[in-house]
């Protein structure tokens, strides 16, 4: 019965269980629904978001892996590449062909060769190194560019919040 998208998602889940990437936890929300995933992204050590564990939600289209999933941070975030509503804006999540910004080369974009693991790792490196060139959150990009200390302070507050420490 299972469609190609489901098969591939199950295969990726199996792979992630067998060989999980450092510090990342990800899996479908339920056994019956493999098209919604939850993932916990640790803030990389030695970066602004160090110490936090950031909950995210991945939503897969029915034609996965032909189209990329959507990814949303479900906690409060302050980051140049995350929209104020939590949506993640990185090139790996953009299908090739539509490039509103004109910044990205197609090699960085989505194709079936990418995977959930690669997305999660990309998001981790996005946390480590924000890209303020085509910001999704202009406010965050401005703070990041002009006032690193303030950015770091706000990132650390958010990181602590994810641990339930206020």
């Amino acid at each position, binding site marked *: *019965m*299972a*469609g*190609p*998208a*489901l*098969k*591939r998602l*199950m*295969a*990726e889940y199996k*792979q992630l269980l067998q060989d999980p990437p450092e510090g990342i936890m990800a899996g479908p929300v339920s*056994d*019956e*629904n*493999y*098209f919604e995933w939850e993932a916990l992204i640790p803030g990389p050590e030695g970066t602004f978001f160090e110490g936090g564990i950031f909950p995210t939600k991945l939503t897969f289209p*029915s*034609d996965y*892996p*032909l*189209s990329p999933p959507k990814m949303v941070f479900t906690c409060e975030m302050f980051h140049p590449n995350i929209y104020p509503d939590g949506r993640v804006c990185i090139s790996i999540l953009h299908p*090739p*062909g539509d490039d509103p910004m004109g910044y990205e*080369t*197609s*090699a*960085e974009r989505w*194709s*079936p*060769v990418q995977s959930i693991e690669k997305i999660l790792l990309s998001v981790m490196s996005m946390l480590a190194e924000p890209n303020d060139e085509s910001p999704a959150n202009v406010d965050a990009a401005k703070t990041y560019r002009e006032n690193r200390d303030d950015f770091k302070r706000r990132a650390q507050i958010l990181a602590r919040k994810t641990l339930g420490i206020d």
Partner: protein
Amino acid sequence: MLQISPRLRNTLISIGSLILTTAVVSNAFYQRKQFYPSIIYITKSNASMAAIYFQGLTLVFLTWKLLRWVFFGQLRPAEIEHLVDKSWFAMTDTCLAFTVFRDEFNSSFVTLFTILLFLKCFHWLAEDRIDYMERTPVITKLFHFRAVSLLTTLSFLDIFFVAYAYNSLVTRGASYQLVFGFEYAVLCTAVGFTAIKYILHCIDSLHDQTAPWDRKAAILLYTELVINFSRVTLYTVFLVLMFKMQSFPLFAVRPIYMAVKSFKKSLYDVIMSRRAIHTMNTLYPNATLEEIRAGDSTCIICREEMTTSCKKLPCNHIFHAYCLRSWFQRQQTCPTCRLDILRPRRPATAAAPAAAAPAGQPAPGGGAFPPGQFAFPQQPHFHMGNMAFPFPLPPGFPQHFPMPQPGQAGPAQLPNLTGAPMMYPAFYPAGGMMPPPPPLPPMPVPNFADMSEEDLRRLEGDSRRALEMRVAHLRNIQALLDAAVIQFTQYLSLMTPPVVLPAVPLTSTTTIPTGTSEATVSSSSTNATPSEETPTGNSESDEVRRRRLQRFQNGLAAEQP
């Protein structure tokens, strides 16, 4: 604020409404004592009527809940979301329709409209549910039972209402029944499509897991085309009839637009799919078992083992044929390396002497070139003139160059091509941005778009001529790749502190013996000539440079055997 769960709230509303109605009815009966006078009493009183209408709404809501539970059980959040979205559109469309038929607006119209909206909701939910079949690993017997009974019920109801509207139109002439008739006819197409999908999913599930039923996608594609076409036809007929009988049906503009749009999309899908299949079947060979086993035998698209029916692209990447086809419907590139599969056959048109194009720069960086880098094969067929070397190199670089057909031209001649595309990002400096490119000699951009069909055909086939042409293109690629290496070296050397190499000593290097470096140095010396015009005022630094170069040359000469 008191927090009430929606469930409790609904129960309270239902009970409240029931109490209200009972109160209204018993009050009327108490006042008038008899049945008919009581009814008249209720209809005369606005407050009583409001209570009755409210009771009607609650009843509709309860029926809805019951039927929904019978046919669907618990709704998923996505289904609810779709339902709400679509209901809003359906409501607005119908409100617009009310304005056209405002003379006929009465309670039977409201009833019919409620039933229509009701049925529409069930159609949408049915579609979502059947689509969900492909997305869940858990399909129970109950699911099948619900699906079959729901689809049967819906199709019977649709047909009944179409017939009812038709009869009404024939006997009583044009009325709002025309709108309802067409609405139900469109719903018929929807339930038909859903039923076909259900059957296809079921057939698919009976197939062996290891050998998926690869015709399903194609059948679905064509079914969608047919369904969308019939929908557009229905709307056209509706439009004509409405225009004749009443006025232009403004309320139907949105659904018609949507129907035309999805028809266009399904037509485009079919065309793209056909093109992809054609490309795959004519251009790319089936991968042999040895070829599959040679590399990673996992298909990168579905992450499953590849055994049979696999295709090999010119870049030597292998995929399941059916996986590749679904991808080609979206994009005509290799999923792994993004080689453009539709363009590779287009050859460069112009030919020009080659040696002039690469290494068009006086070598900066204190002679940082290892001797091997300049080993530029001097072949008579360098058609480099019109082949631009775009900078910075886009990762899609190989897309623009003619590719050989594997098996005929042989990957062996192009060992670096197969792996090359994946490597491009690695050439970017760590910072991510390219340094400003040095002034390159003007290199015209290749203009493959001008290729006529005939030119393309000339490249196909096994004739000597076609073979020769392909070989010529291969040489172009080689030249371009060599040029790329040189350019990259230049870029890398640009990143070290610039030390301008004087032109004068270079000419003397022509005396250096041996093969490779001779070709190398002579080509760079010709290219260096423009810089000879630089003023020779700074004699002190000139002297330093000369000495440096002398040392470098000595080193070079010492390395020669």
